[in-house]
């Protein structure tokens, strides 16, 4: 098991617009940044009034090629768009989540990206 900190190693951008956390614990999409200071756009009223909890999922999709290069076929533990642990063992991933104090850990496996344009059935 390896616990890693990759806050700068992988892109935190989704189509070039980084997501930044606001003081009220909501996320918004930035329009530009300078150093660590992000400038962000105010989201429309409806979107900002509801939870937007898919940012780590989008980050995984956006970085799937890099994730496969760094952790081929390994389980990865993702928190706030950062890989915090990786291992080939599910038990190790659970141990890492517990030791890091991560509740509700997001887990997936870094597999070789494939592009399907016509999918009607996911078994295979």
């Amino acid at each position, binding site marked *: 098991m390896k616990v890693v900190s990759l806050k700068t190693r992988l892109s935190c951008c989704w189509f070039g617009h980084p997501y930044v956390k606001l003081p009220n614990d909501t996320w918004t999409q930035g329009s530009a940044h300078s150093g660590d200071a992000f400038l962000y756009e105010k989201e429309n009223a409806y979107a900002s009034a509801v939870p937007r909890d*898919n940012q780590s999922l989008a980050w*995984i*999709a956006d970085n799937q090629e890099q994730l496969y290069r760094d952790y081929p076929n390994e389980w990865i533990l993702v928190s706030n768009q950062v890989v915090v642990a990786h291992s080939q063992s599910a038990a190790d991933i659970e141990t890492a989540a517990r030791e890091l104090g991560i509740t509700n*850990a997001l887990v*997936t*496996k*870094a597999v070789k*990206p494939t592009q399907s344009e016509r999918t009607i*059935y996911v*078994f295979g």
Partner: protein
Amino acid sequence: MSSDKSFEHVIDFIPDGKLWQPVVSVTFLRAGALDLSFPLLFDTGASQICLSSDCEEFFPDSKLEDCTFDGIGGASIPGKHTAGQIRFLGRVIDCDIGFAKMKEHSWMRGVFGRECFSAFGFGYWEADHRLYVTVKP
């Protein structure tokens, strides 16, 4: 059944090359173990939750029973299943959890199927790449 179709949650689809995928984070509650979330494809064609078979590793204390899953074109896929519990948008739901070999993507470890849908109302906007959800259907 309410005629009010307002929604409290918006879930953005995620980008996958040229496509957008409706993927949700679903938390699996396991007795005596840490809660874990897996990314699941929102799939109205699936009758229940089904995880990729390698996710069985995360359920070592569950009693898994052999079963088959029916698919498009008459395909019959061998798999396993167990009784489980999930949490989605604050709702805890008892449900059957399947395991089967699936096409693999880093952005999904299974499918979120209809058995768990009754606690919610969904609005699916393909053009907007968004899934709207209410927990008060």
